[in-house]
């Protein structure tokens, strides 16, 4: 069947009243979560997964809700970047560079509309790219045996810590913490308990949702209490929202270029949306004739990173859906959602559950249109929400995370474990050790070990089997390059710090 008819089937799934309602709710929640500094897409999705599960949503419904939240958060991140000079989430960091200066010049409305349109262009085109690329890549995935999967997991770990962290050793340590936690519980092959310390609670292993909510949401509580008093308030005025046609037309090419860059950055494992927006902005700046105006409120400097990071968000879904290897922290959380729903990403997903895949893609296209409406004409609503004081917001988020985990298992042990992960996350944050590799380790640890052991069963214990196909060899080389490249690139790519107040 061709893409169009599959997509039509997808729209049949996505256009049910329930799914539409969930998409609207997801877009609104996502934009709010994205706009609030300190609450990124990973937190938003992580907080909602246990809730969606307890509400008894089915696979497609949960996916529609969560991916709407995911895209919504990517859109929303720009709002506080522009108005507060504080990125709502990490990928929106680059948007502060020209967005905040524009706002200070009294063009906050223009910046918000322009970046909203750029987000739409990036996300919408990336979703179409996903639509055509994912099924093709899924075919390639058929060629993957256990040896190739083992190399692929290695690639994900070697690149994910990469640019995000300041030290390779710290990224390795974080991955090992995650993998080590994943080993706890019953061994898949022999059925024997491993590393449980005899505790009954740990027989089933550590639930990755507990770890995710702890590391993301509970950590935020401690970080917030520490940074309290430093939060800024809106210092710019927002006039009537008009459509800056000149700026939008003037940066059309910028948006398209940035979309391509962002999409490719998103597909690469481990790179994610932050790199997408960074590369898009840098590329735009380096080819511009008016380089010196970048950083002082150039509209192209607003359009480029927003198109870039939203395109990357779409691109990151490609490896997640086809290979089960997430390209970013948030897609790692989305992978956790799939696993909770008992959906195994990969080529079989496209063959056996086309309604899930195509329903998801159709829902993403619909969500983008909704988000354009929410984020351009209705953007003032979200600006109001930015004024919710932290003394209400933070306790609220904390309580939601407790209820989420508690309603899943009803166990106080899981809640204590979640707090434990929160403390761990705080310490790691202070020490500049990335937490995303931990999540990835907990998620993929057992799969990684299984693929290694299965490879050895197939080959009768011959280690050369791990390098016996060209796909495996390419992946091993990519993993090594991905691991060592940041050592050289780190000095070249210095992330700008955006604080001038």
């Amino acid at each position, binding site marked *: 069947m061709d893409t169009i008819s599959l997509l039509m089937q997808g729209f049949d799934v996505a256009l049910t009243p329930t799914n539409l309602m969930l998409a609207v709710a997801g877009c609104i929640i996502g934009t709010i979560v994205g706009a609030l500094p300190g609450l990124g897409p990973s937190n938003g999705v992580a907080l909602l997964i246990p809730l969606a599960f307890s509400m008894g949503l089915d696979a497609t419904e949960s996916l529609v809700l969560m991916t709407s939240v995911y895209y919504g958060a990517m859109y929303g991140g720009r709002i506080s970047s522009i108005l507060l000079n504080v990125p709502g989430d990490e990928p929106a960091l680059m948007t502060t560079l020209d967005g905040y200066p524009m706002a200070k010049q009294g063009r906050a409305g223009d910046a918000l509309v322009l970046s909203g349109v750029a987000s739409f262009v990036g996300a919408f085109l990336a979703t179409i790219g996903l639509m055509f690329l994912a099924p093709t890549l899924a075919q390639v995935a058929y060629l993957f045996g256990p040896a190739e999967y083992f190399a692929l997991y290695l690639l994900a770990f070697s690149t994910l810590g990469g640019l995000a962290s300041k030290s390779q050793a*710290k990224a390795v340590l974080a991955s090992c913490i995650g993998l080590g936690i994943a080993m706890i519980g019953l061994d898949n092959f022999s059925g*024997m308990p491993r590393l449980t310390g005899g505790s009954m609670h740990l027989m089933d292993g550590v639930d990755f949702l507990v770890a995710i909510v702890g590391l993301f949401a509970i950590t935020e509580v401690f970080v917030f209490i520490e940074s309290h008093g430093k939060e800024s308030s809106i210092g710019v005025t927002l006039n009537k929202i008009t459509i800056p046609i000149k700026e939008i037309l003037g940066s059309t090419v910028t948006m398209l270029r940035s979309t391509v860059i962002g999409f490719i950055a998103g597909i690469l494992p481990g790179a994610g949306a932050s790199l997408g927006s960074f590369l898009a902005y840098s590329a735009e700046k380096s080819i511009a004739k008016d380089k010196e105006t970048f950083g002082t409120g150039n509209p192209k400097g607003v359009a480029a990173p927003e198109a870039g990071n939203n395109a990357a968000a779409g691109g990151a879904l490609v490896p997640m859906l086809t290979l089960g290897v997430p390209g970013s922290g948030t897609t790692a959380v989305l992978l956790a959602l799939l696993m909770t729903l008992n959906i195994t990403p990969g080529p079989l997903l496209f063959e056996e559950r086309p309604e899930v895949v195509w329903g998801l893609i159709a829902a993403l296209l619909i969500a983008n249109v909704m988000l354009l409406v929410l984020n351009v004409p209705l953007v003032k609503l979200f600006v109001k929400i930015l004024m919710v004081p932290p003394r209400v917001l933070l306790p609220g988020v904390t309580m939601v995370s407790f209820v989420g985990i508690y309603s899943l298992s009803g166990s106080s042990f899981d809640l204590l474990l979640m707090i434990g992960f929160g403390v761990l996350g705080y310490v790691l944050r202070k020490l500049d050790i990335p937490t995303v590799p931990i999540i990835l380790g907990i998620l993929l640890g057992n799969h990684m070990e299984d693929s290694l052991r299965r490879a050895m069963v197939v080959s009768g214990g011959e280690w050369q089997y791990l390098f016996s196909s060209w796909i495996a060899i390419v992946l091993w080389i990519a993993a090594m390059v991905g691991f060592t490249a940041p050592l050289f690139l780190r000095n070249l790519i210095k992330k700008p710090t955006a604080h001038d107040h």
Partner: protein
Amino acid sequence: MADRLFAGLMLVVAVAYAAVATKIQTSFLGDPVGPKLFPIGIATAAAIACLFIIFKPTADTTWPDLPTFARILVALAILITYTYLLKPLGFVIPTALVAGGLSFLIAGHVVRSALTGVGLAIGLYVVFRFLLGLSLLGFPKSWFGV
């Protein structure tokens, strides 16, 4: 310094982890790798990473001052207490106390924090129980004479 301390701690954990992993029971249905090798491999990689950090620590961490640190500890204690109160007392009462407490830690205003706590507890209960349909016990069971 903090880098080294943490890496040293993790090094001890890694060694202990490997020691426990060597005692994992192997089953008679053996595969060539077995259930021990991968955990031991992880511990080895972690240990090497720790040694790197110990010999070449990176950033200096700025830790919060003593009052802030105390506030974080209080927040931690509040959260731990919450996990023990949730089952016997239901959702609303502990949530009002905990949300109010956290709010006080952030803003330091008694009346507003109390209002925030009560407001959040009731608001979230209504949302979870009635809008999202979660089976959440709102109040102590004894109140219903069960």
